[in-house]
């Protein structure tokens, strides 16, 4: 994957997190957890995951969602799977 595409994915993930959780980009560091740091409850996380799916044209099975606890986890997952999608 090219560096440009990697950066695109990161930027897009951050944008989606900002929009879904109504937080500022400055607050969305890769180490931040969705629940404790960014205030998402279980339903908000489901919505966030669906937004990732629509934006990146992939499917994130429920059993994988448990492993996506931080912004960084989401970025890594999408980098890994978006490559093999479209």
């Amino acid at each position, binding site marked *: 994957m090219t560096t440009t595409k990697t950066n695109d994915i990161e930027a897009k993930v951050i944008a989606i997190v900002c929009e879904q*959780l*109504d937080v500022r980009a400055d607050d969305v560091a890769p180490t931040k957890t969705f629940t404790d740091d960014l205030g998402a409850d279980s*339903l*908000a996380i489901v*919505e966030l995951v*669906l937004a990732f*799916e*629509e934006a990146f044209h992939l499917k994130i099975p429920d059993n994988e969602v448990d492993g996506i606890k931080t912004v960084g986890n989401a970025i890594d997952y999408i980098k890994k799977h978006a490559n093999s999608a479209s």
Partner: protein
Amino acid sequence: MSTRRVVITGMGVLSPLGIGVADNWRRLCAGESGIGPITRFDTTEYPTKIAGEVPGFEPTQWIAKRELRQMDLFIQYAIAGAAMAVADAGLDRVPVADPERFGVFVGAGLGGISTLESTIAALKEKGPRHGISPYFVPAIIVNLAAGQISIRHNARGPNLSHVSACSTGAHSIGEAFRTIVYGTADVMIAGGTESTVTPLGIGGFCSSRALSTRNDEPTKASRPFTASRDGFVLSEGCGLLVLEELGHARARGATILAEIVGYGLSADAHHITMPSPGGEGAQRCMKMALRDAGLAAEQVGYINAHGTSTAADATETQAIRAVFGAHADRLAVSSTKSMHGHLLGAAGGLEAAITVLALRHGILPPTINLDDPDPECDLDYVPHTARPAQVEYAMSNSFGFGGTNAALIFRRAEF
């Protein structure tokens, strides 16, 4: 042990006449109408193109942006109404001492129909995974109005939503009254909320031929008790009261707006949409409220009628005559639906608030548009203009589809 007394210490309303008690009362006293063309959807194919929409509602004034997706508009109105009622009662500054004795009875007639409609469309377009939000269920179910209020105000007492069509708001208040008298709670937020200005909401009542089609003159369409009335005008909004045990209110120095003294309820057991002949069910309901209050019929000075601007207005008139006898000709009876339209599940809540205001300010709001009274409707409906009048006891009527009736009686506060 003597019976506990219950007073009203706060109110919050949203209606086509505006957001908040002040705007609503001012416009009611001025005899203004809040009815206009429907703006929410394209009404080209609908026979009725008018409704009472709440003007200028800004959800983020009351609710964090990220939470809006959790709630249909009827719940948003309930949250705003509760915030205003709690502030009016002074309970935002000093919260209720024992949250477990602070409850919420707020219902709706239909609930989250607009979110239901948009989700069905999204389901067809995107399938269930992406079409149905994880918030869909909590966004549409009626009791989340009471639930969201309890979360935001730490109200850990009884939490319930009554659903009785157009009597919802009144039943919610009556049951909250009973709950405080019984001793389960000391403070209750009670009333109704509704937002159904949608294709199915308007279309459903259109198909029943229940709505006025006076589209060229929206402000004149809701005209209860007139010969030319042709159906009700559908409106949205919320009407909530803070009910409080008298000792509890006095102890914290609350301003007492009125006392609630009587509650009656009954079933017509007659028809799904039409009232029983002569208003037999309504008569029993009003009599029950009078008995509950320990009042003679002659002691009531004003009735805020159900008065929807349908054929049933004549039935309500007959029922009032039957209950009040000769005193009926000395009663002032007005339908404020002539100005704000029919708020369905919220109607009883808004109209209870208006009845309290009438007692408090000594002004009876009018029935506007009463240009051509129906000969069968021959009471004093306070035509056209608001009337200064000191009344001690006032009644508010609500009658719903399925023949479910409610009557509340309030007493002017002298505390």
